[in-house]
């Protein structure tokens, strides 16, 4: 057990996997000599050398595809997309090539690669460097999608992702890189297994990434008794855990750092409603960002993101009245 920053947990997971398995190689923009714009590859070039740790040209399509091809030939490539938005120019290689190789080859070619990227808002990077975008990839069968919420899950889930035989998208909430936490490097976490971080009786809160921390603060502020489920993996998500929790609490809210429309939280709610409607005391709902690009202005960006205050207000209202709270932008008459 040792305290480390989130970004150091990423470095540690990469280091430990590269030591454990010589087929793990790592490449991306500015990850070797410069050790990563977020210092998530500190020391890797020195430790493992230029054959296994490489700087790429600014060519996401080429190096994402190169990871696909290398994975098909027996390597375990990990690549870094600096900001998840940059996946836009490489999406073909991930969703149209990597995700379908096993299927189109009748099981002959698997693609054991990990695509890491920083994601999320809160640091004033503007609308093209602040999205989470897990919804881009969550609807593509063949991929797995992970977002850790703290240094421990960053470490353990990244190791699981690298060991996994299939293509995994690993989204790192950028705002957490500097956060510290205890990390037990012997602790294994499974892809597809949620963690119940707090237990309670009145409501189930499902969250992902930094929204786990926001939800936790919201629960404290509200002073309610809640189950807090850190999903960790969006694809495949832990249905059994969420269904069991809602069976107990009878209420469900999903806190998502993504736009209201088309979010993964709708999938969670649809599953719960369809499978155990009768266990519900009130309508499940979601706390999301509004359907707008991420605003740059600091005050606006802070309101754009789900906050502990919003979580607190909405879960209290839901528990007290068994009603469905409205998002702040409707409540305050700012938007429809």
């Amino acid at each position: 057990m040792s305290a480390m920053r989130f970004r150091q947990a990423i470095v540690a997971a990469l280091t430990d996997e590269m030591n454990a398995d010589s087929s793990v190689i790592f490449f991306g923009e500015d990850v070797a000599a410069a050790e990563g714009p977020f210092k998530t590859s500190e020391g890797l070039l020195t430790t493992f050398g230029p054959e296994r740790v490489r700087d790429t040209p600014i060519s996401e399509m080429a190096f994402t595809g190169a990871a696909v091809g290398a994975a098909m030939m027996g390597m375990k490539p990990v690549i870094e997309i600096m900001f998840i938005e940059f996946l836009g120019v490489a999406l073909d290689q991930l969703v149209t090539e990597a995700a379908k190789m096993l299927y189109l080859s009748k099981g002959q070619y698997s693609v054991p690669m990990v695509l890491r990227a920083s994601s999320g808002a809160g640091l004033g990077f503007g609308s093209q460097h602040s999205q989470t975008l897990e919804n881009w990839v969550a609807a593509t069968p063949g991929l797995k999608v992970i977002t850790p919420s703290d240094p421990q899950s960053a470490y353990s889930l990244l190791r699981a992702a690298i060991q996994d035989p299939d293509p995994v998208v690993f989204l790192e909430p950028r705002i957490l890189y500097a956060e510290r936490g205890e990390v037990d490097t012997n602790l294994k976490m499974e892809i597809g297994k949620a963690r119940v971080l707090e237990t309670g009786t009145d409501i189930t809160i499902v969250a992902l990434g930094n929204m786990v921390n926001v939800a936790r603060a919201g629960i404290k502020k509200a002073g309610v008794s809640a189950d807090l489920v850190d999903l960790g993996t969006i694809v495949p998500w832990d249905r059994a855990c969420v269904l069991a929790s809602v069976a107990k609490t009878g209420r469900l809210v999903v806190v998502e750092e993504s736009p209201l429309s088309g979010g993964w939280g709708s999938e969670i709610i649809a599953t719960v409603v369809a499978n155990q409607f009768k266990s519900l005391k009130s309508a499940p709902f979601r706390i999301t960002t509004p359907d707008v690009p991420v605003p740059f202005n600091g005050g606006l960006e802070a309101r754009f993101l789900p906050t502990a205050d919003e979580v607190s207000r909405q879960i209290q209202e839901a528990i007290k009245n068994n009603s469905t709270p409205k998002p702040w932008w409707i409540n305050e008459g700012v938007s429809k």
Partner: protein
Amino acid sequence: MTTSLQRRKELIASELVWYERMLEIREFEKQTNALFAAGSIRGTTHLCNGQEALAVGLASVLNPDDVVSATYRGHGIALALGLTSHSVLAEIMGKATGCAGGLGGSMHLCDRSVGLLPTSAIIGGGMPIAAGAALAFQVQKKSSVAVAVFGDGATNIGAFHESLNLAAVWKLPVVFVCDNNVYGEYSRINVTTPIEDLHLRANSYAMPNLKVDGMDIYLVREALQGAIDRARSGGGPTLIEAKTYRFAGHSRADQALYRPDGELEMWQKRDPIKVTEELLIKKGVLTAAKAKELQEIADKTMVDIVAKTQNDSEPEIGDMFKNIWTSKN
């Protein structure tokens, strides 16, 4: 039953098999076209008539443990590499006996035993993947090479430029083979591309490059062999442009009425099968009578395969749920 690998070894071993394989590809496309026209096959297909010398030339110079990424116009390359006509036709017909179990279709052919990566239906899609396969060979210190085959149209897409640049800067053992058949989908190359000799684009990446008459299998082999040797010995990538011609339209919906008068007829005079036949006769490997006999055999064999394949079983309903992930999650 003959395996893909056996067929590949036969091809590597004998000039006469090159000719037989080219005939097989031509007959295959003839029957495929007829089956589509008759409504016996769903979806779409892209024929490679006119491009057989490149496909067979490539398969004859590569080792079975080299890998090839090819395109949706891939029947010829698949057959040349060793896949059986039955396996490819069954795939096109969506049968369980197809190389992808009937889940891929005409544009998605694959066989790991002879290094055929799943063919891509995205222009340029296979190029970064070939570079990545080459990266694996480089790191693993293997002597294998990767080949990316793509059309002239692909030289205008980002994947082409990104892949060439990456391969050049990392000196990857990959050979880029542009099958310039003059048309990118429904558009003639001059409408979409400001230069005629596409191999020159590699100069921007300080990459060796050359063009070759893609209708002459001997010249194709010679050009490829040089590039493959360079890649194998650590000399890095090469771009080869093979000048071919697409005798058919883009896909089955396309009659190619946009072609200038006389262009097809001009290229048909240099039909790669005729060119090969003449060269083999000149070398004494083939006689005119033997050529005619082989053509008749190829024709009859393909007719029999069509009849047999039509009766093959369909995939099970559960097959669509397989091979989504390797893990059991």
